[in-house]
């Protein structure tokens, strides 16, 4: 049993429309091993794991679990065959209790006369036993929505153990945990490892990989790069594998002349979460906003743009106070916002590219009878499609058929077509592949040279550090710090972003 290979992936290929997500990945996992998969955001780590547990079907390649070839058509099937996955965003049902979630889809049943009913007692006994093994205590009868992030994750782990899975995949488990919670999680991973589980640990946090993992496989742009023992390698070597080029040349930041203050917010409050924010942005500047998920960055920007209420504070544009009641007001003042969630808030996926670009300014493209001038609409869209470099056959192409990167370019085109002075980009490179990411960075850089001011929210610190002139750090709805380009490092920003949270947690 010791050191038997329990999961073997060979030449896994997966393509999506417009993107080759995985191009021939090899991977193997032994029992009693913690094996890291690392790579940049968008390298294909999560896609690979979704292929393993049946969320996606690979185009080609083989998956071997416990020595048998398998092809799962859904995660439930994978669970039953011994592969369980703990997703980045937990897949628990908020309205159901812990117990119900643990056994969802594989409830323990008993016979009650002619009926088969759920055996809550047996489930409770089993769940208690599992939580004892994890040395955690969670009330089995509370709803998931009452739990914190770390507890939810514990429930996910417990859920994995309710199946007799011997392979557990953690997809960036520490992304939203405090330092103390991470320590507790690592203790659990070590005890699972000692019990003979094989653990796949997806992360791009170097310290964690070296702390907890035995081997590490690097993938980049969907390609297999290397597999090494963590004892034989070091951080620099891994980073070099992940990035595949020198870090410095990665971000196409061009030095621009920074002018006077364009935008200023003073003692700004939204309807409850964002408190007492004062900041400014200068002409030609790229201003970064860093912070953990839920730090209030999106809330702040939406409120400034009139998409969410404001309770106190003043806004100034070029020295004049402005009143923003709706997003229309913000647009009229030259402030444009590109949402982090393209699918839900950003674009109308089932409309064409040109309809999407024109949507915010339809009222400028009509005659006095409100009849749309489709020629002008085409022209407007065409101009920005070329400028931004959207790869599509024509403007009538539906947005839903574009790759993530091209969709993001449509969102940016739409914002630029409004001729903004201040462009707020919320996670502009989330969910796009590496090439598109570089292109978007180049576009952003180019815009500042035309005198545009850009506020960029991003959860990727290297991106912020590489692109921004200044970086504000938010924490729990308030500003926690500000760094100039020269002094910003990942460590400094993270320590500010985490500071009191880890002390309190």
């Amino acid at each position, binding site marked *: 049993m010791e050191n038997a290979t329990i999961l073997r992936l060979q030449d896994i290929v997966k393509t999506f429309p417009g993107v080759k997500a995985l191009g021939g990945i090899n991977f193997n996992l032994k029992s009693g091993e913690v094996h890291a998969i690392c790579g940049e955001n968008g390298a294909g780590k999560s896609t690979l794991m979704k292929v393993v547990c049946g969320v996606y079907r690979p185009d080609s390649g083989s998956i071997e679990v416990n020595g048998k070839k398998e092809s799962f058509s859904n995660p439930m099937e994978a669970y039953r065959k011994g592969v369980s996955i703990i997703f980045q965003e937990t897949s628990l049902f908020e309205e159901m209790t812990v117990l119900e979630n643990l056994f969802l889809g594989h409830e323990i049943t008993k016979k009650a006369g002619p009926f088969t009913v759920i055996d809550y007692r047996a489930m409770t006994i089993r769940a208690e036993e599992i939580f004892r093994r994890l040395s955690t205590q969670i009330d089995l009868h509370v709803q998931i929505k009452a739990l914190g992030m770390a507890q939810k994750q514990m429930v996910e782990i417990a859920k994995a153990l309710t199946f007799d899975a011997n392979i557990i995949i953690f997809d960036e488990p520490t992304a939203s945990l405090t330092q103390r919670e991470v320590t507790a999680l690592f203790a659990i991973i070590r005890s699972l490892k000692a019990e003979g589980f094989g653990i796949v640990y997806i992360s791009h946090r170097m310290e964690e990989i070296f702390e907890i993992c035995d081997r590490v496989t690097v993938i980049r742009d969907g390609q297999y790069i290397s597999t090494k023992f963590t004892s034989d390698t070091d951080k620099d070597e891994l980073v070099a594998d992940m990035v595949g080029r020198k870090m410095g040349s990665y971000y196409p930041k061009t030095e621009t002349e920074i002018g006077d203050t364009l935008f200023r917010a003073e003692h700004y409050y939204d309807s409850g979460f964002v408190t007492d924010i004062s900041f400014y942005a200068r002409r030609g500047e790229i201003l970064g906003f860093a912070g953990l998920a839920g730090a209030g960055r999106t809330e702040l920007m939406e409120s400034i743009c009139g998409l969410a209420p404001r309770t106190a504070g003043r806004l100034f544009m070029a020295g004049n106070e402005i009143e923003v009641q709706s997003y229309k007001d913000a647009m009229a003042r030259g402030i444009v916002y590109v949402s982090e969630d393209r699918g839900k808030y950003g674009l109308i996926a089932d409309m064409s590219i040109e309809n999407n670009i024109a949507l915010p300014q*339809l009222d400028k493209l009509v005659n006095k009878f409100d009849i749309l001038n489709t020629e002008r609409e085409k022209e407007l869209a065409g101009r920005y499609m070329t400028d931004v470099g959207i790869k*599509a056959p024509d403007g009538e192409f539906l947005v839903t058929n574009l790759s993530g990167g091209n969709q993001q370019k449509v969102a940016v085109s739409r914002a630029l077509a409004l001729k903004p002075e201040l462009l707020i980009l919320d996670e502009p490179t989330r969910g796009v592949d590496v090439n598109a990411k570089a292109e978007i960075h180049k576009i952003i850089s180019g815009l500042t040279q035309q005198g545009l001011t850009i506020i960029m929210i991003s959860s990727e610190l290297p991106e912020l550090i590489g692109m921004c002139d200044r970086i504000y750090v938010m924490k729990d709805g308030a500003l926690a710090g500000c760094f100039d380009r020269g002094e910003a490092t990942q460590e400094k920003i993270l320590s500010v972003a985490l500071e009191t949270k880890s002390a309190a947690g």
Partner: protein
Amino acid sequence: MKEKFKFTFNLALLVIWAVLFAGIAVKAPGFLSYNYIVNVMLRNIVEIGMVALPMTLIIITGGIDLSVGNTMVLAAMLGGMAAAKASDIAGVLVTLLTGAVCGLLNGVLIAKAKISAMVTTLASMFLYLGMARGVSHGDSVYSYTFSEYMGTMSFLGIPLQIWLYVLLALCFTVLLKKTAFGRKLYSIGLNPHATKYAGVNTEKILVIIYVLCGMICALVAFIFLGRFTSVKYDAGTNFNLKVITVVVLGGTSINGGIGDMKGTIIGTLIIATLNSGLTVLNIPIDVQTIVQGAVLIIALISYAVVNNRARKKRIIKVEAPDALS
């Protein structure tokens, strides 16, 4: 591509209509007379057809209005009572006002209070029904001069209400297809959040279309009262679903975002042909209802077939950006 797809579905609808029409005409030659087609077939469908126009706008935004029939009856009733007590002018004003207020209530609840359109208008359907019964004490309310004109007058040999319908159908077609307002309706139906985040005042637009729908119901109230000379509180009960049937038959997706006015107009013609044609053939009313249901199912299946084909075509076309990148 979208255009082409709509064209094919509308074509399928036209074929269904032509087959029905021809079949009935062969069986009952009397059906083909000008008099029958204009004064029976078309005149009987005008009320449903007219309300189906704003209903198409509502359904395209992903909403629905189950209270149109009751709005119409309440407006006709209050108007008729006002005309009897005061004057025709009072009757007209009260009718229009009633329609607008009924629509406004729906619109405000749906847009501002964010209650689902289905639930809101289900409630207001009963509300308006109860009010109509209450004010009339269950008695009939009678027609007055203005509504008589609207319901019975002809112009160039064609009943006034048909002229009105044609005019309105043209206006609504242009409104939906050509204006920025129409584009915003589709956009709301496809993704209300993203539409709001594009700076479109979605709440205002929703209120406008429900009020517009109420106003059209008021207009129809004149015609309805004039045509039947009296109205009772329960006259609009079947009306709600008939209007929605016509719109859905016309290929407008009940989920919003997809559909057009042409489809609704052809759908209206199909139902009109069925109603009058089956009567001419002396087919009993229960069978007629069954046939209507069957035709609706056939139309929806053909819609699904056309839709699937369009989807497949789309997937093939996806390869294009790949090659370019």
